[in-house]
C-alpha cells in the first residue's frame, strides 16, 4: 500500500471540502438554513445571472458562481423549507414535497409523475431522493460509438471527473471502494446495513453478483453542523436530521454566505427576449399573485426535465414563435426515465425494511453492454425500503386486493425489496410539449409528457427482473412480488455538437440564444443506469467553471470589479470549531 493510500485511509471523514462551508454555516440548534444575512436584490437591478430552480443543478451553480463573485438570484416555485417546521416523519405527510400541479402523461407506456420524480421548493427533488450518489461510467458518454445506440455526449467522463471528486467531499458520499466504471474510493466509510440488505447481498454472492455498500450522500458521522444519521428510514420524506445531502444543506448555505439571493415561492412564467439583439434580458415571475420581472445579464434554467422545456416552450416571441431556442424543434425531445421495477422477497425472519436508509447496497456489474444478454446497455441493482403505503401499492399491483392484500400487508415485516435501474434509450418522440388548452392555477399551459419504450428497453427490463428474481431465490426468499415502475427524469434539452439535433452546446449554452443556459438534468443526452443527482451537480459545477473562465477572459471591466469587491467580503464565522 502506498503512503498516499495510507494517508487517505487515516484521514477518512476528517477532510473538509475545499471552497464550500455549507455544513459549517448551518445552525447547531435548528435545521433551517440561516437566511438573516442573505442579500436582497431589487428586481430592476441587472444581476449577473438569474437561475430558475434551486435544485441539484441550480443550487450547485449558484454556490459556485457566488463564490467567484457573481451576483446571482435563484428563483424557485416552491418554499424555502424549514425541516423542523415543514417536514414530517410520515409517508403520507410528505405529499407537499412533490410537484403536484397538473401534468398530463401519455404515450404507450405513460410515466406516473409527482412523488417519484418531481420536486418542489429549495433543494429540489434531492429533498426526497433516496440518497444514492453514483457516478456515471466513462462508457456513458460514448454509447453511440461503443454500442451503436443513443447519442455520444459532447464531453467525456474526464471533463466531469474532478467535479465528481469535489462533490463527493461536499455531500459527502459514503461507501465501499467502487470497482465499477472508473474505480474510485469514497471520502466517508460505508454505513452499516440492515438485515434485508445483508440477506440480499448473500443471495447475490451465491450467483457471482457482487454488491457493495453505498454510494450514499449521507455523512457517516456528524459533518460540520450536520448531525449523524439516525437510520430512521424516512429519506424519501425529507431528511429532518439534515444528515442526507441535498443542495438545501450542501450548497445553498454557502451560496447565501457569498451573496446569492434565494427567492422562494416565485413561479417563473416567461424568459424575456430582446427581439433586436436576440439576447434574453431576464425572467417574468409570479410572487404572491403579482407579476414581476427580474433583470439579468444571463439566464440559466434549471427546472428539471419537465419544467425546463415547459418554460422554454411557453416563452414564445416573434423571433421564437414555437418556444425559446426551439427553431429546430428539439426542446422537450429525448426525455428519459429509467425502468425501475421493484421485486420484494419474503423471508422467514423479520427484516423490518422500514429501518435504515433505503439506499444501502448496489451493484453496477450489469451496467455496460453484454451481447449475450441480447440488448444494448444494461442496468444497476439497488436496495429500496418501501414504507407501508408504497409496499401496499406493490402488493395490489401484483393483483392482491381485499383479504389477500391485508394478509400480505400484515406480513410486511418479513419482506425486503430490491430495485433495478434499467438504462432506457433516448427516443425523439419521448417528449415534453405544452398541452393546448389546459392551464394551471396561474393560467400557464401545463406540460404533457409522452413516453413509449422501444424493444431494447423491454428486453433490458425483463432481463433485470429475472436477475433480481434469481437473487431472491438464492437468498432463500419464500415468496416474491414484482411490480413495474419508472424512476428519475432526465433529458429534454440535450447537449450536443450539432445544433440541428440538440438544444445546448457542450457549455450548456443554447445554440440559438447566446446568454441562455440550461443547467439541470435535462441536458443529458443519455442516462446510464446511475441515479442522476450527482451527475447533475457535477455538470452544474463544470458549467460554473466554464462560465467564469469565459467571463474572466472576456468579461467587462465592471464585472471584474464587482468580483473583486465580492471577494473582499469578510470570511464567515465558522461555528463548531471545524
Amino acid at each position, binding site marked *: 500500500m502506498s503512503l498516499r493510500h495510507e494517508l487517505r485511509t487515516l484521514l477518512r471523514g476528517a477532510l473538509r471540502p475545499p471552497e464550500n462551508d455549507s455544513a459549517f454555516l448551518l445552525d447547531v440548534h435548528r435545521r433551517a438554513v440561516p437566511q438573516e444575512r442573505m442579500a436582497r436584490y431589487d428586481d430592476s437591478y441587472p444581476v449577473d445571472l438569474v437561475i430558475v430552480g434551486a435544485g441539484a443543478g441550480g443550487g450547485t451553480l449558484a454556490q459556485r458562481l457566488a463564490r467567484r463573485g457573481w451576483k446571482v438570484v435563484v428563483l424557485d416555485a416552491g418554499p424555502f423549507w424549514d425541516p*423542523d417546521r415543514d417536514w*414530517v*416523519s*410520515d*409517508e403520507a*405527510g410528505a405529499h407537499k414535497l*412533490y*410537484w*403536484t400541479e*397538473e401534468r*398530463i*402523461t*401519455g404515450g404507450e407506456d*405513460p410515466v406516473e*409523475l*409527482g*412523488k417519484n420524480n*418531481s420536486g418542489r421548493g429549495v433543494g429540489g427533488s434531492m429533498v426526497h431522493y433516496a440518497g444514492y450518489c453514483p457516478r456515471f461510467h466513462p462508457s456513458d458518454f460514448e454509447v453511440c460509438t461503443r454500442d451503436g445506440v443513443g447519442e455520444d455526449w459532447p464531453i467525456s467522463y474526464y471533463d466531469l471527473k474532478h467535479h465528481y471528486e469535489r462533490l463527493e467531499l461536499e455531500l459527502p458520499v459514503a461507501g465501499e471502494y467502487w470497482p465499477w466504471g472508473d474505480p474510485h474510493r469514497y471520502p466517508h466509510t460505508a454505513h*452499516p*446495513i*440492515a*438485515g434485508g440488505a*445483508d*440477506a440480499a447481498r448473500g443471495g447475490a454472492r451465491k450467483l457471482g453478483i457482487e454488491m457493495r455498500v453505498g454510494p450514499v450522500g449521507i455523512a457517516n458521522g456528524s459533518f460540520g453542523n450536520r448531525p449523524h*444519521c*439516525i*437510520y*430512521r*428510514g*424516512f429519506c424519501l420524506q425529507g431528511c*429532518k*436530521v439534515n444528515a442526507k445531502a441535498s443542495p438545501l444543506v450542501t450548497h445553498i448555505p454557502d451560496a447565501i454566505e457569498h451573496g446569492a439571493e434565494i427567492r422562494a415561492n416565485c413561479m417563473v412564467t416567461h424568459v424575456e427576449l430582446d427581439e433586436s439583439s436576440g439576447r434574453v434580458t431576464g425572467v417574468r415571475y409570479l410572487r404572491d399573485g403579482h407579476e414581476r420581472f427580474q433583470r439579468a445579464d444571463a439566464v440559466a434554467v434549471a427546472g428539471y426535465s419537465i419544467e425546463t422545456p415547459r418554460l422554454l416552450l411557453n416563452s414564445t416571441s416573434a423571433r421564437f414563435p414555437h418556444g425559446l431556442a426551439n427553431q429546430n424543434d428539439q426542446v422537450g425531445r429525448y426525455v428519459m426515465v429509467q425502468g425501475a421495477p421493484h421485486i420484494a422477497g*419474503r*423471508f422467514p*425472519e*423479520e427484516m*423490518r425494511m422500514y*429501518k*435504515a436508509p433505503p439506499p444501502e447496497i448496489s451493484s453496477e456489474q450489469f451496467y455496460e453492454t453484454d451481447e449475450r444478454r441480447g440488448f444494448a446497455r444494461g442496468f444497476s441493482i439497488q436496495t429500496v425500503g418501501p414504507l*407501508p*403505503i408504497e409496499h*401496499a*401499492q406493490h402488493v395490489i399491483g401484483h393483483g*392482491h386486493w381485499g*383479504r*389477500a*392484500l*391485508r*394478509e*400480505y*400487508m*400484515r*406480513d*410486511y*415485516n*418479513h419482506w425486503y425489496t430490491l430495485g433495478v435501474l434499467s438504462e432506457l434509450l433516448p427516443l425523439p418522440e419521448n417528449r415534453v410539449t405544452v398541452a393546448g388548452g389546459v392551464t394551471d392555477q396561474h393560467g400557464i399551459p401545463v406540460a*404533457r409528457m*409522452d413516453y413509449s419504450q422501444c424493444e431494447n428497453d423491454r428486453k433490458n427490463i425483463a432481463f433485470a427482473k429475472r436477475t433480481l428474481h434469481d437473487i431472491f431465490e438464492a437468498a432463500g426468499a*419464500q*415468496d416474491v412480488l414484482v411490480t413495474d415502475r419508472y424512476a428519475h427524469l432526465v433529458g429534454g434539452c440535450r447537449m450536443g455538437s450539432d445544433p440541428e439535433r440538440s438544444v445546448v452546446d457542450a457549455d450548456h449554452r443554447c445554440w440559438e440564444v447566446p446568454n441562455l443556459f440550461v443547467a439541470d438534468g435535462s441536458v443529458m443526452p443519455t442516462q446510464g443506469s446511475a441515479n442522476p443527482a450527482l451527475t447533475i451537480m457535477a455538470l452544474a459545477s463544470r458549467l460554473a467553471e466554464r462560465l467564469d473562465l469565459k467571463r474572466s477572459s472576456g468579461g467587462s471591466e465592471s464585472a471584474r470589479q464587482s468580483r473583486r469587491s465580492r471577494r473582499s467580503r469578510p470570511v464567515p464565522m465558522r461555528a463548531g470549531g471545524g
Partner: protein
Amino acid sequence: MAGRDFREAAHLPNLRPGGEPASPEELPRQRNGVTPQMHGRYPDYNVLDEVDHWDEVTRRVVLERTENVPRIRFFSHGEAATLGAFCDVLLAQDREPKIPVLNMVDAKLFAGELDGFRFADMPDDRETWRRVAAGLDAAALQHGSIDFAGASQEIKEQVVEAFAEGTLHGQVWDELPPSRAWKVVTRGALGAFYSHPWAWNEIGFGGPAYPRGYARLGIGQRERWEGASAFETDPVKDTERRRVQGT
C-alpha cells in the same frame, strides 16, 4: 384454533391452493390499542404508545388522523354510499372498527390535493372518483342489484374483481379505462388506509421515528419498544420455562 408459525409462509395467498389467504379470524384479538377489525398479528403492540417520542409536527399530523374524522364534503350522499362500500370490499373492512378511508380520500379531493399527473386518456382524479361511483352502480345493476352498496357481498366482490382485472365494460366504462381508474382509486384508498396508525398496529410498523431513530437493524432484531408477532412464543414451552425459573 391453532397458532401459526410465521417463519413458514403458509399463510400467504401465493403459496396456498386457489390463492385464498388464511382467515384472519385465526389471529388473536388485538389486546393493546386498535387495529382495523381488531386482527392481532402484533396483539400487544400499539404504535400510539410511542407518541411521546415523536417530534411535535409529526405528532400533530398523525394524531389528527385518529382524532378528527373529516366529514364528507366532496362526494354526494349517493356517491359516498357506493364508494364507501367499495373501499370496504377493496380493503376487507367487514366490521368495526374501520379506518374511515373514504372520509380521508374525500378530504384530500375536497382540498384539491392531487398527485401531480393525470393520464392523457383520463379525466382529473376528482372526476375519475365520481365516474367510478357511477360505474360501480352500473356494474352492480348488470348483476341484478339496484346499486353497489345494496348488493350482496358476493356480487360486490365479483364487481371489484372485474374492476381489478380491467374487464368492466358498458356505459361509464366505455369512456373510462377501468385499469387506469383502478390505479387512481386504489392509490387514493391505500394511501389513506396505510397512513393510519391503526393499520400500523396491524402490520407492526414502527411509525414516525424522529428524533429517536433506530439502532437494531439486523435480521430478526427489533427495538425494545417494537411489537412482537403473535405466536412468536409457544405458550406451553413458555409456561414450562417460567416455572423452571420460578422454583
